[in-house]
């Protein structure tokens, strides 16, 4: 068991999957000699060579589209979109093609690709290096969407994604890359897709988050503990398919729920969680389901003061918990 940063966990899991399965290839912008702008693929080029670690031109649509074709012809591509903010040119390939290939062929063609992409704010990335884009993709049946929050889960979920027979969008929160460390087994362990995790037990309020927000939710639960509020925290981990059972069993017990997400509030992923819980757990609720999310401006601004204003903080979550606890 080694203590690794989040980015080290990604890198070692990628390397171990490439050793395990010669069909796994990595392609994207700067993923080769440079090892990726965040060094997620550092060392892979040296170990596996230019045929399996491919520096592409600046062509997001090609990166995904060629991955789809390569997957059809026997490979397991792990394309990287350098920043989630730049995924838009590939949207058609992801949504019209990868997500629908199995359905539209009546189950005869599959598309086993895992699209990795760094996302999220709090890193001075401004409008185009900070976005949270999961809601665009969780809307689409046929795609799996994964957002790990710990080095352990990053490694285990990445392995499961690569081995999965269907397309997976694997979003990695940039702020976690080097700020979070944790124990990661040296084995080829996996963490199953579609399973949320209760990361803190509590009795009065359920707080649901993912990515950086899974950490902020834990911090917020600590903040309110001394005030006698017992908050349970759930890390969603796989946004789609959603582990509704874990969410429902918690909310039916606590009767109160705060959903936290970094993306703009209106129409964000947490809105869907909130709607589902309202439908499925209404009889158990003792207060409104609250959403703590980013403000509805087009993106994260750059200046320190503005970025601070945009981001969800543990304090903001704690305030929502207190408000809800008062019901």
């Amino acid at each position, binding site marked *: 068991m080694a203590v690794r940063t989040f980015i080290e966990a990604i890198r070692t899991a990628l390397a171990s999957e490439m050793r395990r399965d010669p069909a796994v290839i990595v392609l994207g912008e700067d993923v080769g000699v440079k090892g990726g702008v965040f060094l997620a693929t550092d060392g892979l080029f040296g170990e596996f060579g230019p045929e399996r670690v491919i520096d592409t*031109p600046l062509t997001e*649509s090609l990166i995904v*589209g060629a991955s789809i*074709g390569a997957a059809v012809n026997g490979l397991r*591509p792990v394309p990287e979109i350098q920043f989630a903010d730049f995924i838009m040119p590939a949207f*058609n390939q992801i949504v019209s093609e990868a997500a629908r290939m199995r359905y*539209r062929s009546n189950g005869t063609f599959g598309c086993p690709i895992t699209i990795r992409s760094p996302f999220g704010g709090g890193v001075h990335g401004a409008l185009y290096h900070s976005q949270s884009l999961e809601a665009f993709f969780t809307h689409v049946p046929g795609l799996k969407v994964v957002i790990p929050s710990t080095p352990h889960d990053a490694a285990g979920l990445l392995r499961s994604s690569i081995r999965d*027979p269907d397309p997976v969008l694997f979003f990695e929160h940039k702020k976690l890359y080097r700020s979070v460390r944790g124990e990661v087994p040296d084995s080829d362990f996996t963490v199953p897709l579609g399973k949320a995790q209760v990361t803190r037990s509590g009795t009065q309020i359920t707080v649901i988050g993912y990515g950086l927000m899974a950490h902020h939710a834990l911090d917020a639960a600590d903040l309110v503990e001394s005030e006698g509020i017992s908050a349970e925290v759930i890390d969603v981990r796989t946004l789609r398919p959603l582990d509704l059972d874990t969410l429902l069993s918690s909310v039916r017990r606590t009767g109160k729920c705060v959903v936290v997400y970094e993306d703009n509030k209106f129409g964000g992923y947490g809105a869907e969680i909130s709607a589902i819980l309202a439908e499925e757990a209404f009889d158990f609720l003792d207060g409104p389901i609250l959403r703590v999310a980013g403000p509805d401006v087009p993106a994260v601004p750059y200046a320190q003061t503005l970025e601070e204003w945009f981001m969800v903080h543990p304090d903001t979550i704690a305030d929502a918990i207190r408000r809800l606890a008062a019901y």
Partner: protein
Amino acid sequence: MADASIGTSELAAEHGLHDEDLLRMYRLVVLARAIDERMWVLNRSGKAAFVISGQGHEGAQVGIVSSLRPGLDWLVPYYRSIAAVLTFGMTPRDILMAQFARGDDPSSGGRQMPGHYGSVEHNVLTTSSPVATQLLHAVGIALAAKIRGTGQVALTELGEGSSNQGDFHEGLNFAGVHRLPVVFVVENNGYAISVPMSLQVAIPDIATRAAAYGFPGVVVDGSDVLACYRAGREAIDRARRGDGPTLIEAKVTRLTPHSSDDQQTKYRSPEDLTAGRERDALPWFRQQLRDAGVLHEEREAAIAAEVKAAVDDATDWAEEQPEPDPSAALRHVFAERGVAS
């Protein structure tokens, strides 16, 4: 078509073929046309909601695709590829099953509009409607072929309208950089639905663009089946040798409206339509084979009768097959446990 009297004419020998090959190609052009015409009859008689046609493209498709190796290579088609998919192994029944949207339609189980071909059995990749997306899949198939050393070639077809999409540029550029075993076939019929060439591009030939990607671009007369055959063979051989991609532009004609929901007399003049019909590969090829002594009245009639029987059989058989059960519509969103994927 086993017939001891069929030998090797001068025309066939010129192309390194036997008369049997020429007759096979002729039959495919005739067959594709006959199925296509049947699809329109079904549409106009209320039995099929939609038709998208390959009429006018068949000669180019049969000629070019004939050199692909079934069972090894990949065909990444588009919605006018009816003759191409027949050449590569799909059957009249397969196509009529899609036209009737039947549950066992091998392309999509009745989920897609007709004309969205696909067959896992024949290495024909499933097709979507957004144009030019399929180029990148062909490039990826070729990339995997190169990495895995399979000796496969991927061939994809598109219209000239699609050549203005960004995916065209991204795909050809990457294929050129890595000298991938892929052939891009632009079937230029002069119209992107209603928009003529003059409003699509500022150059006369799409094939010119290949120069910007570092591989050959070839213009071929789509009404000349054997010229298309030569262009296809050369490009496919070149790809298989590891010498990289080719862009083939076949100048074809669109004999029908864009689809059954289009009225092309609104934007094409009677003269244009007449000129377009004169560029139909089918009568040209028929005459060429007659002149070469490959085709004579008896053989022609035998092929016509055999094709009619095949189309009738496919129509009747497909119509009798059950429609998809709505309970199946939830299936295959993701791989199903215990089902090979």
